[in-house]
């Protein structure tokens, strides 16, 4: 967090530099089943973030010593492609992406019925194609849809969003400028139905009152994203058109177009 910057990011009418209100999400687009080789996949745009997720598995777990005889392990790998950020990022994992991968893996492990697939691995690959703050939340949101697209039994779909603090105000879903010059960042992933928190990080400066407000805003936004995730899956299986028989692993004819 850049700390208390003088940069004015919210105007006197409470409108942010990209025209949003403080509790407003960026435009979101979610699409399921966008890749052919993967067992499940999803594409997510949140504002200027563009993220792909692919799922392989349950499949044999390598290396073997990582196998769990009682359940599947869920291994998520979050990665930013080299040209997804202003300064070229060298390919390969850095410390930040290792940490994020770990946290997303832990969150996803909670919702997958891992006991159904002992000794296997469920591998989720998240590639950030274009980054604009909030990529870990966008990635987790995509991963959850991709897991469902792969037909893997889950307790529920998981949405994620970051709440932050900018110009001493609590605001939802920071964009890049707000993230660079903001005062706090609080990414959250949860099961909206039960209120269970699966991912939570925070850095910056929040009083207890600010934290409470941020949490409330985040919970509300997670509900919104959750509905968009379900919409994407419904479109994928054409439930809206009554074509409920369609076999999940056969993508609709035109699904690949937009991605």
């Amino acid at each position, binding site marked *: 967090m850049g700390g208390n910057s003088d940069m004015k990011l919210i105007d006197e009418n409470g409108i942010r530099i990209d025209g949003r209100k403080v509790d407003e999400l960026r435009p979101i687009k979610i699409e399921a089943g966008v*890749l*052919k*080789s*993967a067992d499940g996949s999803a594409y997510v745009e949140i504002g*200027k973030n*563009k993220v*792909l997720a*692919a799922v*392989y598995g349950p*499949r044999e777990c390598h290396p073997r010593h990582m196998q769990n005889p009682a359940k599947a392990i869920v291994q998520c*790998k979050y*990665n930013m*492609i*080299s*040209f*997804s*950020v*202003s*300064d*070229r990022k060298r*390919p*390969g994992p850095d410390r930040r992406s290792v940490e994020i991968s770990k946290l997303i893996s832990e969150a996803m492990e909670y919702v997958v019925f891992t006991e159904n697939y002992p000794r296997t691995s469920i*591998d989720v*690959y998240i*590639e950030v*194609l*274009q*980054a604009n703050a909030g990529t870990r939340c966008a990635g987790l949101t995509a991963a959850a849809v991709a897991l469902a697209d792969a037909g893997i039994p889950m307790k529920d779909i998981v949405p994620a969003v970051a709440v932050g603090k900018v110009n001493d105000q609590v605001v939802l879903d920071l964009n890049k400028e707000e993230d660079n010059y903001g005062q706090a960042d609080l990414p959250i992933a949860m099961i909206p139905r039960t209120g269970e928190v699966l991912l939570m990080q925070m850095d910056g400066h929040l009083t207890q009152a600010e934290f409470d407000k941020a949490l409330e805003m985040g919970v509300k936004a997670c509900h919104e994203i959750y509905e968009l995730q379900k919409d994407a899956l419904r479109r994928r299986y054409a439930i809206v058109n009554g074509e409920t028989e369609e076999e999940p692993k056969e993508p609709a004819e035109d699904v690949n177009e937009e991605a």
Partner: protein
Amino acid sequence: MARSIVSEIKRDHIHKLIADGKRVDGRAWDQVREISVQTNVVETAEGSSRVKIGNTEVIVGVKMTVGEPFADTPNKGVLSTNAELIPMASPSFESGPPDENSIELARVVDRGIRESQMIDLEKLCIEPGKKVWINFVDIYVLDFDGNLFDACNLGAVTAIKSAIVPAKANGLGEDYPMPITCTPISVTSVQIENSILVDPTLDEEKVAAARLTVTTDDNGDLRAMQKGLSGALTLEQVKTAIETSRRLGIEIRKLIG
């Protein structure tokens, strides 16, 4: 695993079809799958492209920074080409640093661009011996269904063509388009049962004996070639593959404009 019973059946099937002059997906031996190209897909890159050839899909970005030239080419920009076979694209790809497959892939794509002098690297010199534009062409394979050489070549070429030199952000005057001299196009053929097939699918690659990638320039001259796989090609097959590449290169060049 690749040699499981299922794949043996598939292998036999492909072989039989080829003996009858047919392909699994009904294409002619010299017919390329449907190609789609979308450029400027990533705004954090100076140029970018997302290309599909059949179900094979790649995304390519060009990043440009100011840096030092190589000592032996003080008045030329620098080109660096990299390919990542990320595990998203195929159950057979693994995480980790580039292996021999992605290294070969990147080097063959690089040679096509470099040897055709597609980018006018002298126009990317800022101050001879001191400051030039460094071009990172980074290729990510997103979905793998065969013929990465041509998909990556096409992705790289279209991403480069779409690139804008970020002069302004570097305090070097107005932005300008990447200086381009020609459009190198690679066409890859494989030999299966002594037949030559262009643009192989993954299933065809698995049963192929030999592979030949031929990159031509706008004049149809040869700029790069690479034979691969552990089978042999007759001199006649080499010439057929070259002739096919030259012919299809013209079509593909038209397609991408």
